[in-house]
């Protein structure tokens, strides 16, 4: 093993949070910063050549290579976990920019009560309303504390949208249920395609409060305070699973990297797969000394540093902590330990499938153009007499339908799925079909967690991460409730035929739901129930910060990127203003 000269800061993972830290430390300080990214560099000027559904959306060329490393999955601890031989229900990224290169770019904030979820539910409904096996927690940070950082993230990316709550003043046409905002969105909402426009009108006529999806695919040319400019979206329909060919979609490579490249104190090493965090630990207190990684040529390297940021996505953050024996692994049998607990995956399904008489021109759109209805989100409706807690959003997205993924969807009345009859129906319905999706909260449960798999290994021979995860009655009841609401709106939209979602049964690891998988290194106000403190600093190792959705104690209905960016901004602020002056525990 080769040991390199020590640097000030090592960042493990070059996605949204890692490159945000690199940009902030690179421009605000003189510290020497090294980013270790396991994947390769991106040829962003060639993203236009990637508009190939087969290689990118079906074969997942931008994502983590499952042949080298995947995860194993089981529904409960009594089962033997099996590897996900190809990724299905979520899609981890790899390469500079991480999953932030191929995200859909939907950018909503979380509701204020999400951050104090345990307190809120207990006060309003009583602790006995929570499921017996829940492990719901407060975050240790409030919405009010995060608000300025949400705004900074929105300004960074030029988010397109319409405010519904400006400093407490409700504004029609925006999300009137959202937490207070200190500023309007930096750019106006994206254009609204036909299917989403129909959803808007139907929801409104039913008395709901539809509003345009907040989008990091900017609606017009935008220059952020760093002087970084991006073009407006052209609605080509190649967002999710692709890099944006004109850079209208905010991606770490077109938002953060241009600033980083001007910082002489920051370097990004690609092809650097970190395998261990090396630390000195005495009686649970310790310090990280360095990380070991395999470089692009296959050589093993030890990189010492003074300060470390682990920013490698939910799953890899958790796995590296477990592999490196940083902190105590969570044990569901004893409820002891913290690393791996509170694994959640957003409740996400097509609540209603709609079949129309008229064509919809569904090939036009962007990953984040559409309309949301939040009337059934969070605790915005009374749950006293309902069989579940919390809720979520109904979305009519117009992402730009591509044919391999979408051809073949036919109403239930068509019985075959191949041959002439099917072909005829599939041709007819190809551009006459849409779905209203539900995206809802997932409570944390003591039995949903991550640990290391005893059987399956990665490319290097290290154990794979094992997910133990299943739905509970709360999610199933919530899904049933949301499905009925979606069907109501679908009928109002004038669809000729509406198919309701058949219901959540077992968690399905092969059906794509979202890449909003969270937990494992959660934040909180107690070292006994969380891995990091409210500044995302490791409770026992003050020179280690763990950023990303791994820190979310439970899953909100909102997409995670705005919140993980706000938390990252806040963590960096506290590092620059407090930690660097006195490198010690911040909480």
């Amino acid at each position: 093993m080769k040991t390199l000269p020590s640097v000030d800061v090592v960042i493990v993972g070059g996605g949204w949070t890692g490159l945000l830290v690199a940009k902030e430390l690179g421009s605000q300080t003189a510290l020497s910063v090294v980013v270790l990214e396991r994947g390769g560099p991106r040829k962003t000027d060639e993203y236009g050549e990637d508009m190939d559904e087969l290689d990118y959306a079906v074969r997942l060329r931008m994502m983590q290579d499952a042949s080298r490393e995947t995860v194993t999955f089981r529904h409960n601890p009594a089962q033997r976990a099996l590897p996900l031989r190809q990724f299905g229900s979520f899609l981890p990224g790899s390469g500079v920019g991480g999953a932030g290169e191929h995200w859909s770019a939907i950018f909503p904030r979380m509701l204020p009560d999400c951050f104090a979820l345990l307190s809120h539910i207990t006060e309003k409904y009583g602790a006995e309303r929570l499921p017996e096996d829940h492990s719901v927690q407060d975050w240790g940070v409030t919405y009010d504390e995060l608000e300025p950082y949400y705004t900074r993230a929105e300004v960074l990316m030029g988010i397109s949208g319409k405010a519904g709550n400006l400093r407490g003043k409700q504004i029609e046409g925006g999300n009137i249920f959202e937490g207070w905002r200190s500023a309007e969105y930096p750019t106006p909402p994206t254009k609204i395609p036909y299917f989403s426009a129909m959803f808007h009108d139907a929801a409104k006529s039913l008395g709901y409060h539809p509003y345009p999806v907040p989008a990091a695919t900017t609606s017009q040319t935008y220059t952020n305070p760093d002087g970084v400019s991006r073009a407006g979206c052209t609605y080509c329909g190649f967002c999710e699973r692709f890099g944006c060919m004109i850079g209208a979609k905010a991606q770490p490579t077109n938002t953060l990297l241009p600033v980083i490249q001007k910082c002489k104190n920051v370097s990004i090493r690609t092809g650097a797969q970190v395998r261990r965090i090396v630390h000195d630990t005495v009686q649970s207190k310790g310090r990280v000394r360095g990380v070991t990684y395999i470089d692009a040529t296959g050589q093993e390297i030890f990189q010492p540093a003074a300060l470390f940021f682990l920013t490698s996505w939910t799953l890899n953050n958790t796995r590296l902590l477990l592999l490196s024996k940083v902190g105590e692994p969570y044990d569901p049998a004893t409820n002891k330990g913290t690393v791996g607990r509170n694994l959640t995956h957003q409740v996400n399904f097509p609540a209603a499938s709609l079949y129309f008489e008229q064509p919809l021109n569904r090939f036009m759109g962007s990953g984040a153009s559409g309309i949301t209805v939040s009337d059934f989100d969070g605790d915005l409706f009374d749950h006293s007499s309902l069989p579940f807690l919390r809720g979520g959003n109904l979305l009519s997205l117009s992402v730009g339908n591509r044919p391999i993924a979408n051809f073949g969807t036919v109403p239930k009345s068509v019985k075959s799925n191949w041959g002439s009859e099917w072909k005829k129906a599939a041709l007819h319905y190809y551009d006459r079909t849409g779905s209203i999706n539900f995206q809802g909260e997932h409570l944390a449960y003591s039995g949903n967690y991550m640990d290391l798999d005893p059987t399956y290994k990665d490319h290097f021979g290290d154990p794979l991460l094992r997910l133990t995860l299943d739905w509970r009655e709360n999610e199933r009841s919530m899904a049933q409730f949301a499905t009925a609401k979606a069907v109501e709106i679908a009928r109002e939209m004038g669809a000729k035929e509406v198919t309701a979602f058949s219901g959540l049964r077992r968690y399905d690891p092969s059906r794509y739901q979202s890449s909003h998988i969270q937990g494992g290194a959660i934040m909180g106000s107690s070292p006994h129930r969380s891995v990091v403190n409210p500044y995302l600093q490791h409770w026992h190792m003050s020179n280690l910060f763990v950023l990303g959705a791994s820190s979310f104690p439970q899953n909100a209905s909102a997409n995670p990127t705005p919140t993980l960016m706000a938390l990252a901004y806040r963590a960096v602020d506290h590092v620059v203003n407090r930690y660097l002056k006195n490198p010690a525990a911040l909480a």
Partner: protein
Amino acid sequence: MSATSVGGVLVYSLDRQLFRLSAQANQSIRIPLRFLSQAEALILAAAASRIFPSDEAGPGAREAGVAVYIDRQLAGPWGRDRYRYTHGPFEENAPAEFGYQGQATPQQIYRQGLKDLKGFDRLKPAEQDQKLKQIETSFFFSLLRQNTIEGMFCDPMHGGNVDMVGWQLIGFPGPRMSNYDDVDKHFGEAFRPKPVSLHQVTGRKIRPSEDRE
């Protein structure tokens, strides 16, 4: 393998039946197979044609070159399982939601599946449908069905969707650079721009994954 060029449009005819013949002189050229034997390719083409037939609703797998597409995919990294986690132990009888858990590569699955369909290309269409119904629930069939859809609607650089027949069939315009002026218009009526391939859009020849690794 024979193919016929009709007015600049390549029409593959793996089952030796020419489709959309014009009055022009037909020219026979040979399409080299990368993985399949000619006998296997004929069976595959016949099966794909029953899944996505050429009929009064429009062209199908034969005109789109689905068999050529699948042959290239099988010869490429996907066919060799380059992208899949292939460490054991293998739990062949895992519930469907775990995805395919077997050890066989797509190359091996096709080789066996086509062997089991020996003589298929000589059957009458109704007999072919009967035969496919018998294997409808097999993993081979689900793979064949999925790959047939891919071959119908992929970018033409992959060997399928020849002359963008699949895209024309459904009104998909391909990787169009901008829908800015149209995305919030044409409500309730079909808007069908002429399809463009990635090669046409970028002006460059792009190497698909099956030609790279």
